[in-house]
């Protein structure tokens, strides 16, 4: 059987997210609850979570979460890590043994900082350096896979239903200011843990619902800039696009949303704000190969915030709600109600309309 990377595996899904604008910490319990009423949107072949603010004591270090097929490959990989990084802590990620989750690989995490000598020699900035090593391991080291690589954040994913994955990883014991969750409905199952979502690169994480039709146009474009789409999944290509637009090109979140979910030309032509019209025209003309078509709803996680976005035709459902300092996002309102029964201002963002929520400065 071919796994993600050897073959393209379309999948549908459920997503949910919560963030505190005040930066208040929440345990993972709440986001696990969100996935229960959306059980039917997954099929037990993948579930996962991303959490921000969970490693305050190691906030200056990149937290590498890794799957290994064997002890030997872990040892081999650690040799490579030691050549490039200072490792301040390495440990097994604690899990619970539950009957719903089986066949786990070796799951390990490392808190690391790039060696300055390496950075200087390669003339790279720190993030680029880390990103390249993550891609090198994932592309070249068979049996080792980095599934999380940001600072003060982490993803947790497995083959199983998301609510079980949350229990497995003891997420009730973590405290974060923002959480995203994903239940996967892939159209086949190699049963590979790395194929579950969220997908991450550095601090970016994406949970995604839908199957994009522009995949290979996007992939072949973004691979010109050093990204390697080793998994052949939509989520992977979207996160590289976001990394490219936000980090490399320096676009704002809203501008990046206008690239990947660009308005129709007729909608742009009808815009009465001339500057706005010019900007949209410009972005569509400059990045035509980064327009993402087909159904998607995504939640992009980053340091201090979340962005939710639907495709421009809004072919997937997504609702947003609020209560006090919290903002909730999910594929179905029922998931929001499961997190916060008294959620207010429930609304469904229009296609291509980004919802950006940021934690107030200094609170994360």
């Amino acid at each position, binding site marked *: 059987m071919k796994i993600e990377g050897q073959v393209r595996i379309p999948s549908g899904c459920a997503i949910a997210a919560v963030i505190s604008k005040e930066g208040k910490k929440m345990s993972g319990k709440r986001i696990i609850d969100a996935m229960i009423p959306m059980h039917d949107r997954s099929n037990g072949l993948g579930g996962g979570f991303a959490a921000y603010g969970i490693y305050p004591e190691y906030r200056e270090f990149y937290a590498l979460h890794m799957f290994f097929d064997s002890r030997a490959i872990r040892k081999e990989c650690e040799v490579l890590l030691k050549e490039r990084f200072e490792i301040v802590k390495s440990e097994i990620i604690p899990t619970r043994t539950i009957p719903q989750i089986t066949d786990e690989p070796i799951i390990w995490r490392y808190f690391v900082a790039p060696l300055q000598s390496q950075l200087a020699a390669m003339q790279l900035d720190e993030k680029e350096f880390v990103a390249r090593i993550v891609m090198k391991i994932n592309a070249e080291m068979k049996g080792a896979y980095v599934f999380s690589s940001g600072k003060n954040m982490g993803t947790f994913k497995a083959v199983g239903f998301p609510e079980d994955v949350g229990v497995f990883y003891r997420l009730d014991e973590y405290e974060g200011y923002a959480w995203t969750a994903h239940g996967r409905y892939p159209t086949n199952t190699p049963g590979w843990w790395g194929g579950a979502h969220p997908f991450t690169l550095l601090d970016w994480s994406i949970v995604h619902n839908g199957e994009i039709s522009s995949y290979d146009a996007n992939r072949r474009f973004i691979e010109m800039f050093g990204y390697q789409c080793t998994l052949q999944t939509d989520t992977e290509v979207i996160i590289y696009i976001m990394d490219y637009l936000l980090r490399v090109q320096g676009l704002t979140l809203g501008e990046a949303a206008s690239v990947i979910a660009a308005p129709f030309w007729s909608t742009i032509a009808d815009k009465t704000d001339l500057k706005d019209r010019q900007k949209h025209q410009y972005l569509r003309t400059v990045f035509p190969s980064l327009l993402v078509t087909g159904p998607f709803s995504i939640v992009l996680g980053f340091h201090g915030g979340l962005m939710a976005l639907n495709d421009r035709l809004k072919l997937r459902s997504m*609702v947003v709600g609020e209560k006090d300092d919290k903002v909730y996002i999910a594929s179905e*309102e029922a998931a929001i109600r499961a997190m916060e029964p008294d959620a207010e201002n429930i*609304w469904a963002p*229009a296609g291509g309309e980004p919802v950006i929520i940021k934690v107030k400065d200094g609170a994360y």
Partner: protein
Amino acid sequence: MLFNGKEQDYRALNEALRKTQEDCLITGCCGQRFIAAGMSRQNITIEGVPGNALGAYLNGADITVYANAQDAVGDTMNGGRIVIHGDIGDAAGYAMRGGKIFVKGNAGYRAGIHMKAYQDKAPVMVIGGTAGSFLGEYQAGGTIVVLGLAAENRKIVGFFPCTGMHGGKMFLRSACEDIKFPSQVTARPAEKTDLEEIKGYVDEYCALFGCHADEILDAPFTVVTPDSKNPYHQMYVAN
């Protein structure tokens, strides 16, 4: 008869609903799908958010929801009534052929898509707030009314309304100066006689949600009708 939605999955819940002829109340509903699918009798009241495909293939039952509803409400509905005391998700009333859907608040994308009328069956959808893009796409019959109450600055309907419309009528409580309609429909200001057609529906809306029909009807409306029952017949050449 009372059901606690918290304790039942959709299959058990629907099985219980089918077993009784009595009026039913479902409390604590949270995401259970397909409630009342294909059912013909009963009054069903729901507290909490029902899941997708509420009242799919509904054939006569009367459903009231005291919350928002999710996607695909009244999918392929044939008769009955669905009343939502809140907003409604995407693709509401897809291919509905009969019955009525009343939404107090706003509708998502693609409301009333492929709605169709047949003989004595004339489906009606009344949306109290605003509607998302692609309202009445492929509409082939029936009546869609959007009132735009409490719309504030939002447009009464999003982008691309009435694409492929080839039957039925749409009433939008707005002069629609900011709305672009496709070329195969005619949008014109409603006259008094037009509004008489929908007075009954607006009355019913007001009785359900407590407002005044006269005040609502005392505003500019736009009526949209298709120019042709056969919008695409020029498009093909036999080969």
